[in-house]
């Protein structure tokens, strides 16, 4: 059987939240495999950043794309072959700055893919610049006097954009995260999992998260309720904020991609 961990040397910093994320992803994939999913049918994409390194470590087919384009690649893959389970990994710089547009459009289209956000509140790989999810006051190499922009709230922003599965979890809660990812992949439509991922080098949030994170288990009754939970300041609520049904893109367009043979094409043109 295929080992889900590749032989590539792992260069995440010791203690990086990405380790927990990696473990959770593997657990979720294992569970899918146990249920009969074929590893050949699971495909990943990633952008560039510390998060992107998961591409080298996870022994799954896919594309290690350009910075910011993980979700564009993922959508192209899904449309070309809707039978694949496509998991897109993105960083907060990657998916909420350089590639924000693809992120919102993938949600708007309800593309049947799973998007896992490594939210470490900064640009790790490029040595700790502020990201659009960094808190006000964040000091990094590009904001030495402190970040002045209020961060986007990924959960509510993705709800606004039209994601049909929206969840939040935390790298230190491997079982919770693994289950969330598993549910996200199973969901038919666009699934978004915000993963709170401490960055020990530039944004060590373990203490904050350990103290404030509160998993909930009941799906909120309404979007208002979900928003209230997602926006709470004293506590950081973990769980599934939204899970609704809506025609996903490849179903809605009645996917016409059906590779005709050369002969069929030729015959058509001759007629």
């Amino acid at each position, binding site marked *: 059987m*295929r080992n889900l961990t*590749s032989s*590539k040397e792992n260069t995440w910093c010791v203690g990086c939240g990405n380790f927990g994320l990696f473990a959770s992803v593997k657990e979720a994939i294992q569970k899918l495999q146990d249920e009969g999913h*074929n*590893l*050949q*049918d699971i*495909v990943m*994409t990633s952008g*560039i950043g510390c998060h992107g*390194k998961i*591409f*080298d470590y996870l*022994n*799954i*087919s*896919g*594309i*290690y*794309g*350009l910075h910011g*384009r993980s979700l*564009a*690649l*993922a*959508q*192209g*893959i*899904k*449309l*070309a*072959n809707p*039978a*694949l389970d496509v998991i897109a990994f993105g960083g907060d710089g990657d998916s909420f700055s350089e590639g924000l*547009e*693809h992120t919102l*459009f993938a949600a708007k289209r309800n593309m049947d893919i799973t998007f896992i956000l490594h939210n470490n509140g900064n640009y790790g790989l490029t040595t700790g610049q502020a990201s659009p999810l960094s808190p006000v006051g964040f000091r990094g190499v590009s904001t030495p006097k402190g970040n002045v922009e209020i961060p986007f709230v990924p959960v509510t922003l993705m709800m606004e954009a039209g994601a049909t599965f929206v969840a939040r979890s935390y790298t230190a809660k491997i079982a919770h995260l693994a289950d969330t990812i598993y549910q996200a992949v199973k969901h038919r439509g666009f699934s978004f999992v915000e993963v709170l991922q401490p960055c020990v080098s530039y944004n060590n949030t373990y203490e904050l998260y350990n103290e404030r994170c509160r998993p909930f288990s009941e799906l909120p009754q309404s979007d208002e309720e979900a928003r209230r939970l997602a926006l709470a300041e004293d506590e950081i609520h973990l769980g599934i904020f939204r899970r609704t049904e809506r025609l996903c893109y490849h179903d809605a*367009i009645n*996917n*016409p*991609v*059906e*590779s*005709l043979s*050369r002969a069929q*094409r*030729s015959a*058509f*043109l*001759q007629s």
Partner: protein
Amino acid sequence: MTEKILTVLIGGKAGEGVKKAAQVIADMAAKLGNYTFQVDDYQSLIKGGHNFSVVSISAGKLCNAYKKADLIISFDQRSVLRHQEDGSEDALHFCNEGDAQGSSAIPLPLAKLKQQSYPDGGTMSIAAIAIFAAVGNINYDFMLQSIAEGYHGNSAGNTAFAEAVYKLFSPQEMQVNYHISKHRMVPQSTFSGNQLIALGAWAAGMDCYYGYPMTPASPLLHYLAKQSDKLKVLAMQVESELAAINMAIGSVFAGKRSMVGSSGGGFALMQEGFALAGMVEAPLLCVLSSRPGPATGVSTYTAQEDLYFALNQGHGEFPRIVASPDCFERAFSLAAELLDLVWECQSPAILLTEKHLSESRSNIDLPIDDIPEATQTIPTGQKPYQRYEITESGISPLKFPGTQNCAEDDVIKWNSNEHLESGVRTDEAPAIVAMRDKRKRKYETIAKATSRYQRVAIYGSGQSVVFAYGSTAMELREAQKYHAFTLVVPIYLEPFPGEELASYAGQEVIVAEHSSQAHFAEFLKNKLKVKVKATILRYDGRHFGTDELVQAIKEAENA
């Protein structure tokens, strides 16, 4: 020895159906046994302003539309004034009564008849067709049938209007000096260059097209979207050109032949993605249809300013393929050929063209036989599968996840970072060199692969050698009807077909192109060491006139 040619010019406001009328007129002429060539001159606006379309009609094949018209139909006063000087000797110029003042245009009660025919409003478009039919001595029923085929909805109004206008003319009263209804065997279907590119790529297996609208490339998207059910193709408008090219790369990863298209500005946005295709070795066909730049430039006109831009798409070193169709037939066959080529060589290619080819229309036979029977087999390599297996040719095995060419254990990794054979990232110096050398070997492999195809076209012969590429070659072929010269056209620009062109090295040549900086002449100097005797440049966005070219070539010869 030149065939007789009839040129019809229709002018009016955007939204009045000028282009549509020209299209129906061209279709009628084709059905009646003529070759046609239509060029639309329009501005970036939806209603109002001034548009005009020109259709040239001839018994012989046409490679351009003429600038002097034998029949001018003006829908408004601005058109009357604008086109006063555009008539040939004995040209007929018709307009609505009231618009004729001070001109030699013949006033007809078009507005009045239009109002009578369409109580709820209709289009002037039909009037042009009826005038054309009347002065072209075209069968009345055939005219009505052509209108019915060309226009959907309000058929009663259309018929009434056509009839009323047609009846303004007594039989044989005013006639153009050209016999339209010849019933020769000519190609029956009229295509725009964009349609031909789309169909050519589709014939070679295109399954997905991703685009963001941009004139003059948008019709690729529109045409494929409209035909998507028939062609079983995905034609999707996405959020930006950046999305388009990255989604296309995703789709080729999953095994589907994919294409993107845009004009200069949108192409500029696809550069990083183009470099990605170079790095991951994605077979990807990109259509770049040029218009005058820089920036937004002049959106609805033609240009050839993007030659070096196309040749140097994307950062970093990787093999690029650039080729440009020199006629309508080639638009079809080259698109097919390039799509096969990118899959054979796993490299991105650009089909470089211009508004003049993209949006002009002509009746041609699709060169279906130019399309190879089947795809070459894709190498699948050894076990264990390594996406970037180092090979002599530089071509590595290609597999698609979740498809039959893929085994249980195959892990297929495409990587935008420099990588090992497995597709996993590397920073190690020897591994970097090995992978770059592999990609470097593809230059040679691509050059060899393209040498199977026709990479250069030579038309006619004569004292002077004139070089051109793209649709400028069409313009020159029309000029060859009036003056003999050798027209040399590289279809492939990269890899450069040096062998085929070797005999021109060091020679004195004339170069014609749509640019102000004579980039193509520069290119030929560098590649072929030709001596450029003269350049013929046009850079106002309009196509070359045939007379203009003949004169310029003669001047260059006598200089």
